[in-house]
């Protein structure tokens, strides 16, 4: 099965041709009976420490007094706590955001704990005045936090609150799935006829019910008049009430080799597409060409990067004064920005300050640093476009049409001479034309007049690693090796970061520690540490001491093998996502002195995951009486594997680990 295809297919638009009979819920706040306490183990998950009985979100669009509309989001949740490990569900945080003008408010919170005591239901109410706390994270973000009182094993808890949000274009997605199983998850969205929202569904579950109903409502908007009188508008409009229900939603937990659980969780994302009469017509979500053009003209994104920017000329010309070719110019500008600026926020799409201010401050978000880089390159007549993307931890973007709220990162694409270079100046240890792993997350978007995509699939990146070990046994039985390793792209980046944080000695000490104190490490060195375009090259010699026994058993990998299977879990619920392709070569040569002969070597092996050879492991070994040579290679030609392929993958790696553990037997004559 082609996983990439299926991934795209999952993200289908929810189209409404027919309406399925409505499935009405019976959950009313406070409507708890003794029966509700009876279940101690729920069939959906016999191990669950808490079960969400119902989780219901209802969004409606209403006119506000700021001259526009707000989304009123009512959230109701009821949960049954089964044992102590489920107590965490009683701690609730509600996240609220403001950008200074528009904001989000919490309203009408109530929360009650129900306990069954001597056959009677005892209610304990949350004191919303004294027991709801506010944590102001920073200027823009805050959390409202509370915990339910009187929690015991067996408690049923229930909360209901409303948030009023001015951010109507991209409301928070509704997540049907979470840390605990949910028996009834329901999302309602009432859309007036003058707005069109699109709803995107992600996940592997199917809806128990989906429906829509229509009605008519009066909408009131007040436009503040400032000094003069407020203007009031009132009009009636039809609306459509959408409803999605999924029953018995299993809990979803993050497993290894997952880009982010966000890619797999069952959720619906709503996005405002257009408005129409009685409002003036406007399309919010266009095609990429439109969106791109708008972004280019947007004050907090592209507006200033193509300007003349005379104020940048002096600094740019001093950087490129001694260069000839376009590529040299581009490199020098890139190096200058990378080396002089510090990135303080790696998740940002827009500017929070002017390019001038950034140049002065020498710090900024990833968007600010790379947009400044783009502006500087343009000043040097190197055509550069910004590229926006969603990082791996942020999750995949929907590819059907532009949804800017899903993007969180900016890089540059520069055309120097006849070549294009993708640039990211936010990382100190990253070379010209290199991107960090987090950027390889599928489709990125080039922001210029065409708005074309840029494929940054994890399949485009290969971790190429080469290790060579030369080994020698002298006449006294002393074993020595010389090891040389060219690290892969990701490993080089990690090594450089590690060395910049802890020093080169920490790497050397790590190897010394792994080899043990009776092994002498000499001539340790790391090359191309500062040549960020090249892979890091590690080399050292080691004296392993003298072995006086009649037989030696030598593992040729000298610590460079896979010691355990990285696929630990016995089963897999969703696809395995590797960050890159793999191509690892290991070469080993051993020469014996007089007095020693090779008694036995491992068998050669050629292992393939499937008919397509998507994963390969090759183990070629040969010997004469005084010489052994080995070449092994591990190749992954694909990064995404379906859950059905998991067992094969795990077995494949198990064999690799086994083979790499095998020994060469040397005998003393």
């Amino acid at each position, binding site marked *: 099965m082609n996983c990439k295809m299926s991934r795209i297919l999952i993200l289908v638009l929810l189209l409404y041709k027919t309406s399925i009979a409505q499935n009405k819920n019976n959950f009313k706040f406070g409507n708890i009976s003794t029966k509700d306490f009876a279940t101690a183990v729920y069939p959906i998950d016999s*191990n*669950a*420490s808490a079960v969400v009985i119902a989780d219901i979100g209802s969004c409606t669009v209403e006119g506000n007094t700021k001259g526009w509309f707000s989304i009123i989001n009512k959230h109701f949740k009821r949960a049954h706590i089964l044992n*102590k*490990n489920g*107590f965490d569900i009683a*701690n609730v945080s509600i996240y609220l955001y403001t950008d200074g003008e528009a904001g989000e408010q919490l309203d009408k919170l109530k929360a009650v704990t129900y306990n069954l005591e001597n056959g009677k239901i005892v209610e*304990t109410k949350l004191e919303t005045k004294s027991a709801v*706390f506010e*944590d*102001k*994270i*920073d200027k823009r973000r805050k959390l409202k*936090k*509370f*915990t339910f*009182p*009187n*929690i*015991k*094993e067996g408690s049923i808890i229930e909360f209901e609150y409303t948030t009023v949000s001015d951010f109507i274009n991209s409301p928070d997605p509704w997540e049907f799935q979470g840390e605990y199983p949910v028996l009834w998850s329901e999302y309602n969205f009432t859309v007036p006829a003058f707005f069109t929202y699109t709803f995107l569904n992600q996940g592997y579950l199917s809806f128990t019910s989906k429906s829509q109903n229509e009605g008519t409502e009066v909408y009131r908007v007040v436009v503040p008049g400032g000094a003069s009188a407020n203007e009031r508008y009132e009009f009636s409009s039809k609306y459509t009430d959408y409803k999605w229900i999924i029953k018995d939603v299993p809990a979803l937990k993050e497993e290894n080799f997952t880009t982010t659980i966000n890619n797999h969780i069952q959720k619906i994302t709503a996005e405002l597409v257009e408005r129409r009469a009685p409002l003036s017509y406007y399309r919010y979500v266009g095609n990429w060409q439109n969106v791109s053009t708008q972004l280019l003209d947007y004050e907090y994104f592209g507006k200033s990067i193509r300007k003349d920017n005379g104020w940048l000329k002096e600094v740019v010309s001093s950087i490129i004064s001694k260069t000839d070719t376009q590529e040299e110019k581009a490199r020098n500008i890139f190096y200058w920005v990378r*080396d*002089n*600026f*510090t990135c*303080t926020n790696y998740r940002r799409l827009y500017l929070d300050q002017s390019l001038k201010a950034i140049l002065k*401050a*020498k710090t900024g978000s990833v968007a600010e640093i790379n947009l400044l880089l783009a502006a500087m390159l343009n000043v040097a007549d190197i055509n550069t476009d910004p590229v926006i993307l969603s990082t791996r931890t942020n999750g995949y973007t929907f590819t059907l049409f532009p949804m800017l709220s899903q993007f969180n990162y900016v890089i540059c694409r520069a055309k120097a001479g006849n070549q294009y270079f993708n640039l990211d100046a936010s990382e*100190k240890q990253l070379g010209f034309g290199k991107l960090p792993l987090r950027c390889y997350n599928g489709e990125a978007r080039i922001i210029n007049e065409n708005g074309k995509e840029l494929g940054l699939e994890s399949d485009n990146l290969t971790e190429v690693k080469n290790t060579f070990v030369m080994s020698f046994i002298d006449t006294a039985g002393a074993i020595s090796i010389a090891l040389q390793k060219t690290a892969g792209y990701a490993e080089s980046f990690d090594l450089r970061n590690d060395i*910049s*944080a*802890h*020093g080169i000695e920490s790497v050397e*000490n790590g190897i*010394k*520690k792994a080899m*043990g*104190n*009776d092994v002498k490490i000499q001539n340790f060195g790391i090359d191309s540490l500062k040549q960020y375009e090249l892979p890091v090259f590690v080399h050292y010699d080691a004296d392993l001491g003298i072995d006086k026994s009649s*037989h030696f*058993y030598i593992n040729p990998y000298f610590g460079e093998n896979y*010691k*355990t*299977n990285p696929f*630990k*879990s*016995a089963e897999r619920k969703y696809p395995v996502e590797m960050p890159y392709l793999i191509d690892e070569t290991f070469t080993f040569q051993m020469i014996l002195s007089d007095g020693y002969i090779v008694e*036995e*070597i*491992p068998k050669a092996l050629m292992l393939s995951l499937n008919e397509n050879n998507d994963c390969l492991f090759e183990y070629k070994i040969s010997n004469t009486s005084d010489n052994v040579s080995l070449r092994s290679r591990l190749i992954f030609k694909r990064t995404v594997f379906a859950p059905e392929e998991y067992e094969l993958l*795990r077995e494949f*790696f*198990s064999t690799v*680990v*086994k083979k790499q*553990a*095998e*020994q*060469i*037997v040397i005998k003393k004559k």
Partner: protein
Amino acid sequence: MKKNVIIILLSCFAIQCVASDGVYAVANIPAALLVKTNVVKRLEERNFEITPNNKTIYKRKVVYTILNEQGSRWAYLYAGYDKLSNVESIEGQLYDATGKKIKSLKKSDIKDESGSSGSNLADDDRVKWYNFFYTTYPYTVEYEVSISYKGTMFLPAWTPQEDNEMSVQQSQLKVSCDSNNSLHYKMYQYSEDPEIVNEKDIKTYIWHVQNLSAVEDEYAAPDWRRLTTSVYLATEYFSLEGYSGSNASWKDFGKFVYSLTKGRDVLPENIKQKVHSITNGLVSDREKVTKLYEYLQQNTRYISIQLGVGGWQPFDAKFVAEKKYGDCKALTNFMYSLLKEANIRSVYTLIRAGDENDYLIPELPSSQFNHVILFVPNNNDTIWLECTSQTIAAGYLGKFTSNRSALAIDESGGTLVRTPVYTMKDNLQIRHAKAKIDESGNLNVLTHTSYQAEQQDRIHQIINRLSKEEQIKFLRENIDLSTYEINRFNYEEIKSALPLAYERLDITANNYATITGKRLFIVPNIFSKSSQRLTINNKRKSDIVLDWAFSDIDSTEIIIPDDYTPESIPQNTVLKSPFGIYTTQFNIEKNKITYIRRYDHFGGSYPAKDYTELVNFYDAIYKADRARIVLLKQ
């Protein structure tokens, strides 16, 4: 004469106050301070001004030269504050390598963020922070911060060399105190007395150091705070949101804490009845304590709310009775109230929980604690209760609070007490493993392991904090085998003052034994491979502190395929050292391998000169743990 001293002092500090161009040039750093370091503290002036009305103004000027990227974390300025303190001002300058000023801190760029750790439901911790984010090394940052504290209960200690990898050119601590309120202090690694200046009603103390070189990291060194110069401070009198106290003695400090807890032990009527219905009919106090503790564990949970004086004063017993939650203070006070209702005396006891068990400075009565537990004297049959846990056994503390000093509080004040020590014999782990290896090297093994005392702390968490599903996930990811399945597993606990946990596992591990042609390689030690290895250091300076004692006993039986004969069998090992004793025995009879391993690790403090012996001891164990048997197919 006295006047002269002041003038001299003033003049020598006046020079440093004005950082005219060049003063902070890297070239002015003595060579010895540039060895093995990434940051040099050029200058520090810490001034505490304790006013007669018990307020404290704390002014700090500090200058760091950041030599490279590895030192860059020191370029941050952090100023924490809460409801009881306020950041009055922050100033900062940036200098390049030649000492030329490049930039001043912009007030609008100071970040003001929540300092909450996230583990609290509510607290008032906030932090203001700043960084120039300069990237051309070396460079120098200079910060001046002024913070005012309501009260003098928490005076930060002076540790000029904040980290062993930092060198220090000059640092000074100056405390001026109203003569009505005397200053108490405790000095470490400071051989002289402080300079004292008396002027009118103000007494000023001055400590200073200069030219401290960076010190290399050493494994199992004593706490850095004890190895380097440091001065801890406390004032004789202090106040906290309307409560006032004295640090004159532990007794007096205890009286202050008592005043915060007094009268908070009133239980609602229904809870009183509950206490009696639980304890009626029980004979011994120990039984009553155990049952009431179980009641506490079943009916409350830990929720931390730390606001203002609430960081030091417990919510009253009624609050806990109604909400069924509280922090360590509230839950301990509630348990105290339950026991009081049952006529059992218990004592609210302050302690510092965590890794550092040698934290207390006994000579300096003051607030040195971060946790509260309950001490039940019970006529010398002492019972310790950790009231924030819903699962641990009555009377058991665990590594979190064991083996350390604590301050027991009652109406007469405070008394220093010691929590229990869990010895090598207590921290016992016994494992039996029965295994079978087939022709292709696959292993099936059944284990039965008992963990006692501190060895069961981790298992206790697995049993009580993880669901069955999470337990199996944990087991699948945390056993040191290459590819394996957990076929079955089971845990049991026996709760007592020396708790026991039993673990049974049935595991299949593919390719456990390595096969090359006609040879089979087996490491008989399947589960107890020590991973501890150290690197030799011939210049070891500090004592060695091995703060935990344990004993591991393994016996393993492995049935191997027929038709194999041993080619190589490891030697039996006996390693004796001041740090412990390690023995192994290998035996092969027909197709059965028997392996017995015992590792007694004493724990304790050792002189630096023993370090090489420790390295060799651990090395020898590391190797012996991986010794393999080589078998040849007939």
